[in-house]
């Protein structure tokens, strides 16, 4: 039979208490035995001494009748088995009986020797009896003595009584042990039972009751720990519910997989987008849900060394063979155990965006074919007019032609910028990389913009350079970037100002800094500087503003070339743009 905690505890405590009681009783019995034995011994010794003292005169006078009376009295005493009085020769004078059969018998030699040399008691033990010999001396003369054979068997009766008492004590201890164990067990198991009840309630989804912490011992700690656990569990439950709601609310698809890509969780967005139920998805491999990105065998194959990826464009394979274009980000989730990462895949449906892209492309194509070509023709025609192909123009006519020419050029730039921006966005801009000297590109850009600057009364001041420093870029695109930055500085410079141009090394990169003394960039606009069609709200400078695409295009190009573009600005003091590009070694 298997005992429960309570039974084991009761048995254990009972055993300890009973063992304690038994040991205590045994020690008590031993002590009692010793005490009883000593009491009996003392009683026998005292009796012998008294009889010997009372016998002194009778021994001295050889009053055997008197001795017989005293020895007879001694024999009547409890536990006295035998008694004799003997003379100085060790011969028995009387054994207390009238017949006195041992008359003249000699006492043992050892006792006789003792009597001759000592007045002390001689005690000899044999079995459950002792023989006490008390010499009687008077005035230095040995008269003889008294010898009592004294039973210690009375001890046996006392021991029987003692055993009964011990058994009773043992029984009481056993009773107390069981009682104490029961009480102790109740005290220990009651909180445990409460914990068990609370745990069951918790497992059945009922609110876990708060346990009372009655003591500060381990049991109290257990109750506290349980309360803490339920509190945390409650919080965790709330958090999970919250998280579930968040995941179900989010429009993006969320897929969680195991280390091998087996799907362990999906949100409802996945089901909606794929048209597949959650139950059907769970257990599938994610490669069955996502098409492998270009150049990879599977989605997980496209992950970086850290197990993550951003902005992967691929397709989600929906029911019925439909492929939904998605932008995927993958994060590795390393468990606390440290082995077997899970993956969190977030996929956003980009069908709409691609459609917009397509519409943009169609628009650009339309602009390219339907606007740019006619515009080129217009500009050419206006240019011919300005050149006097159609004859001399009067002042008014020349002014109108110049206006037309200026606006057609502006429109041409706008169209070019729109086309460039679109190429950048769609990744169709072509780059012809080659090793060129940076300063050459800078100087070409300055040269190309000088006329524009001169029109605004602005000069360029090339303060320092990095002669011989090489970069691997598409020279035209790089010049386009620098030109954009230079013309932007000119645009925000007052007439008569100079735009400072510096080229230097910053870390492992080459940096071209273009500084103006213009109005600076307002705080609220700084985050939008590189956005398409973004223009500052400086009313005073609006007339000089460009297409609003220049800085966006510049950022796109320089980043495609492996560089970057940043700025520092102080309102009403000026702005410096930094174009950084890796130095070619």
């Amino acid at each position, binding site marked *: 039979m298997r005992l429960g905690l309570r039974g084991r505890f009761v048995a254990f405590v009972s055993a300890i208490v009973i063992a304690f009681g038994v040991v205590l009783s045994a020690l008590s019995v031993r002590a009692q035995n010793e005490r009883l034995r000593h009491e009996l011994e003392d009683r026998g010794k005292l009796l012998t001494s008294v009889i010997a003292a009372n016998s002194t005169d009778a021994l001295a006078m*050889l009053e055997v*009748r008197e001795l*017989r009376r005293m020895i007879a009295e001694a024999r009547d005493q409890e536990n006295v088995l035998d008694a004799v009085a003997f003379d100085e020769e060790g011969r028995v*004078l009387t054994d207390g009986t009238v*017949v006195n059969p041992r008359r003249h*018998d000699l006492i043992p030699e050892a006792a006789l020797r003792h009597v001759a040399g000592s007045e002390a008691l001689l005690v000899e033990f044999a079995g459950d009896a002792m023989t006490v010999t008390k010499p009687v001396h008077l005035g230095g003369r040995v008269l003889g003595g008294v010898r009592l054979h004294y039973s210690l068997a009375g001890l046996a009766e006392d021991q029987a009584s003692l055993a009964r008492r011990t058994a009773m004590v043992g029984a009481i201890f056993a009773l107390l042990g069981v009682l104490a164990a029961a009480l102790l067990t109740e005290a220990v198991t009651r909180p445990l039972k409460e914990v068990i009840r609370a745990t069951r309630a918790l497992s059945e989804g009922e609110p876990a009751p708060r346990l009372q912490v009655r003591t500060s011992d381990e049991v109290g700690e257990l109750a506290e720990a349980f309360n803490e656990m339920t509190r945390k569990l409650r919080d965790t439950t709330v958090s999970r519910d919250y998280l579930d709601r968040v995941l179900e609310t989010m429009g993006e698809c969320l897929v969680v997989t195991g280390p091998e890509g087996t799907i362990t969780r999906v949100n409802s967005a996945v089901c909606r987008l794929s048209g597949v139920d959650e139950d059907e998805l769970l257990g599938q491999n994610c490669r069955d849900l996502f098409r492998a990105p270009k150049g990879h065998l599977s989605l997980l194959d496209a992950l970086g060394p850290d197990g993550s990826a951003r902005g992967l464009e691929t397709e989600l394979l929906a029911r019925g063979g439909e492929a939904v274009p998605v932008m995927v980000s993958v994060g590795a989730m390393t468990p606390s155990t440290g082995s077997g990462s899970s993956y969190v895949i977030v996929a956003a449906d980009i069908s709409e965006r691609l459609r917009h892209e397509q519409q943009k492309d169609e628009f650009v194509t339309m602009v390219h074919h339907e606007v740019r070509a006619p515009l080129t023709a217009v500009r050419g025609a206006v240019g011919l007019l300005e050149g006097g192909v159609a004859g001399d123009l009067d002042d008014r006519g020349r002014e109108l032609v110049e206006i037309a020419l200026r606006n057609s050029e502006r429109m041409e730039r706008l169209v070019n910028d729109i086309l460039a921006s679109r190429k950048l966005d769609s990744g169709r801009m072509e780059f012809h990389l080659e090793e060129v000297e940076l300063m050459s590109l800078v100087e070409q850009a300055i040269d190309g913009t000088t006329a524009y600057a001169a029109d605004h009364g602005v000069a360029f001041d090339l303060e320092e350079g990095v002669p011989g420093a090489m970069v691997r870029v598409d020279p035209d695109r790089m010049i386009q970037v620098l030109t954009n930055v230079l013309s932007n500085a000119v645009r925000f410079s007052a007439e008569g100002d100079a735009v400072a141009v510096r080229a230097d090394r910053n870390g492992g990169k080459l940096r071209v800094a273009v500084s103006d003394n213009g109005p600076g960039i307002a705080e609220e606009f700084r985050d939008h500087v590189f956005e398409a069609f973004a223009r500052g709200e400086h009313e005073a400078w609006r007339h000089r503003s460009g297409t609003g695409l220049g800085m966006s295009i510049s950022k796109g190009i320089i980043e495609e070339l492996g560089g970057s573009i940043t700025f520092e600005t102080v309102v009403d003091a000026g702005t410096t743009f930094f174009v950084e590009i890796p130095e070619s070694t």
Partner: protein
Amino acid sequence: MHARLVLGLALVVFAGCGQSSESPPAAVATATPAPSGVLAFGSVSLNPAREHGVVRPFADFVASKLHGAGIGRARVVVVSSLSQMVEEVREGTVDVFIDSPFPAAFVWKHGEVQPLLRRWKRGADTYRSVVFTRRDSGVDMLEDLSGRIMAFGEPFSTSGFLMPKAALASAGLRLVNYEDPAASIPPDRVGYVFSNDAENTMFWVIKRKVVAGAVNADYFEALAGDRLSELRILHTTEAVPRNVVCVRRSLEAEVVRAIEKALLEMHLSDESQAALQNFEETTRFDRFPRGAEADLGHIVALLPHVQEDLGQ
């Protein structure tokens, strides 16, 4: 020997001139009216209560056997001296007197009683005494005791004192009583002390406290034990009856015969034996083998030597 002591001539009369008591009508006679006759048992003792307790059951038992002789009950008379006993018998207040040979002989010779039967005690019909000494005492014969001191038992003991003393005296020794065993004894006297116990007497001789002693011959060897070889017997007295039953001379012959018959038959029944045993270990009663005169003649002859010791 029961504790009866005769000391000197002074008569101490307990409860007036003596103590007597009568038993109620014997229970055995309830079937028919008990005879009115009363049989009086006399005894000498300085402890009348104890003596009465010893004699009374026996007296009642005997009386119950004497209804045919007109005896319906018994009476016990305890006096403190032999002289008073003589008087009680003479006055007819004592009918039966049972005692050791010397007291019995004394009352017989001075009073109105007649020896009737012997009383056995402890299985013995007679006893005798021995006078002994150590072999190395230098005493080879009784005469060698002169100038030295010996020990007797109790003053009222026939075997321990009266008989050996009478024997020594009859042998011509002049015995003088001393209190101290170490007393200086004139060369023409034999000093004696009372050891009051046969065992004392034996050890006193063996331990040389006295030169000689006298004890009942029946106990001598037991008392000497393994030291018997160290001792020498100087004299052994003649055998005398253990105890003597005397009846008042004037008692009716029918009653005497009835008493004699009852006592002689007592040892024959279990009921009677119990009464005998309780009466100081009496074994039985019998007639004097050679007749009272012959069997008690020796005692009567020695009586003068212990006359004073009997308190007369």
